[in-house]
């Protein structure tokens, strides 16, 4: 298990856990990043931060510092594997 900010562009991951609390966590979840959802890391901004994700069929951007709160497991082949 690793956090979302460590995932390479073009990879697909599944959310396993959300750290943090209060407003920050709620906001991330309100945008549809909940446990079990699949995220596609589409790109990173030209200056290296923030990241662009595809989640629940739409495009979303999030700073790496906030993505650090999202624990994920990576999809390798057809399976999600813990790192």
């Amino acid at each position, binding site marked *: 298990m690793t956090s979302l900010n460590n995932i390479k562009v073009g990879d697909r991951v599944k959310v396993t856990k959300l750290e943090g609390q*209060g407003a920050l966590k709620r906001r991330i979840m309100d*945008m*549809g990043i*909940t446990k079990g959802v699949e995220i596609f890391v589409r790109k990173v*901004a*030209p200056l290296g931060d923030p990241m662009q994700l595809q989640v*629940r069929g739409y495009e979303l951007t999030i700073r790496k510092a906030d993505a650090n709160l999202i624990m994920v497991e990576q999809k390798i082949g057809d399976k999600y594997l813990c790192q």
Partner: protein
Amino acid sequence: MSIKIGLVGNPNSGKTTLFNNLTGSMQYVGNWPGVTVEKKEGRLKNFKDAIVVDLPGIYSLSPYTLEEVVSRNFIINEKPDVIINIVDATNLERNLYLTTQVIELGIPVIIALNMIDIVEKKGDIFNIEKLKEITGCEVVEVSALKGKGTNEVAKKAIEVATKNDNCNRLFKFTDKVESIINGIEDLVKDTVPNDKLRFTAIKLLEKDEKIDVDLTNQTKLIIEDIVKKTEKDFDDDTESIITNERYSYIENIVKTLYLKKSIVKISISDKIDKVATNRWAAIPIFLVVMFLIYFLAVSTLGAMGTEWVNTVLFGEWIPDLAEKGLTAINSASWLNSLIIDGIIGGVGSVLGFLPQMAILFLLLALLEDVGYLSRIAFILDKVFRKFGLSGKSFIPMMIGTGCSIPGIMASRTIENENDRRITIMTTSFIPCGAKLPIIALVAGAMFNDSAIIAFSAYLLGITAVLISGIILKKFKAFRGKESPFIMELPSYHVPNFKNIAMHTWERIKSFVIKAGTIIFAAAVIIWFASNFSWSLRMVQMDESILASIGKIIQYIFVPLGFGDWKSAVATILGLVAKENVVNAFGILYNIGDVSQAGQEIWNVLPYTALSAYSFLVFNLLCAPCIAAIAAIKREIGSSKWMWITIGFQTALAYVLAITIYQMGLLFGGTFTVYTIPAMLLFVGLIYFIVRPTNKRIRLNEGVNNV
């Protein structure tokens, strides 16, 4: 009977377009009481007794953002008769997430299903009947962009509002959570009205502090116990449990509603983004877009318009007309002076920026409408974040080079309140068009027209913005509500010109109203103070009230190297409009057209190169003109913050000017009584820049910055 309709939906769901379609041009735009969240109201086009209130675009009804709280309070306290919930069919899961919450508020809901045509075009199948069945709501297909379905929505809204029976079907959580909610409902059912019962119970379970219920201490303790036990059982906080349940419920119903037939293709929007936010191309493209905006609005079209307003409309037509009118009625000379020099001159100098503003707002609204604005934030966020600003702060700054007022107003597009506030407080540091004559005067007369002076003025402005960002973000007031930068990148779409036109018009209108009120009053006061003595006799400016004030405050500027009353008056007049600074020199020293005078003016001014530069620094950075101050007050939302802003700006200007002047003198070998105070002020400034932030406070807020 009047009917109240609330319009609720996600940002970028087509809500504003639907609102414009529903209400036509009969709209009122203002702010929600006490906060700077935009409030729009309008009457339904074919049913004038119905008022539509456009609630802020939101993703959820959490207690954490201003927009969400405003929406919640409106629905709970003002009890609209019906809610129209616009749902973007192309982004179903996240849109329905809000719907599950809105339905719980105990008001009948109509779902306006937008962009269903796009879904069908892709070849996917949407089962509308099923959505009706699941939610119990009326569902109407609309195409906000094409204006289809608007009448149907309006008709259904009136129908439901007059029938007044709520057949919304609340969504059921899993059995375990459902029984916990039912337990809390039983506990509070005597104090909470029936229609609010479920919403209140869920919010109590979520530990929502903004919920307004009057419970006995005993009940509170029981609920606390329930929350604790639930969190232990699920190994998660209750808020997250509820959110998770909503989304997994939605995933299940979407499976039954939405049949994906299309093979995943790269959408046009993705193709545009491949270029527009490309690693290498993004920044060059962004610079070209900015250059085009600047080129059209500030330098070519806009400048032509402004030139016309200043020299023809307010330079010839209106003054000539006024003069003829006044001569015809044989009015007194003081009245002529008041109307022509004071009012027409004062208000005219501000309205002169209207053409530039109109073009800027139009282009910005266009960028926002097509979806590029959020890409700019994406591209630039990393740079601006270091200074307590956001990626979107760039636009106000850029516009600020033309005029601070539209710049400050453009800060509206920044959602995060802290980022927005710091942007408003610093935008006017960037030298605006009206400050250029001051720069030109100093550069021309003292530094042989050196381009370095103009360059240094912009550099100074940018530096002031950046160090202010660092200083301000360390204050507690800007730390309290740190929110994550998590933002939707909406699909690009063809602009809707009606929306853009209305958006531009709203902003221009508020500016014109301001010019007609605050600036009008200020122009009259300044005219009076510069033409009358304390004994209320009409005098030359050097005997006027203004001059006598200048003779007092000149002492403040002694440490900065320009402690004479004429400089003081010029600086005060700069508060009306920065062009006045240079014009004041012309009047006070009797040199006709200062801009043409060049070198000769400098022989009569009591400056050295150093004190002239100090004068420039102070006048560039201190409080902006009254029109900009009024814009700051409106955008920042309170008089208190307006005073803090101009106090902060003037203090920073003072500290930088005294540092430059006194250190300059010191390098030349001159030590004055102000050398030590200047050094101390400078050290103080450095302290505010480098002082450490209190890490503990950040952790308490759950913001885990690594």
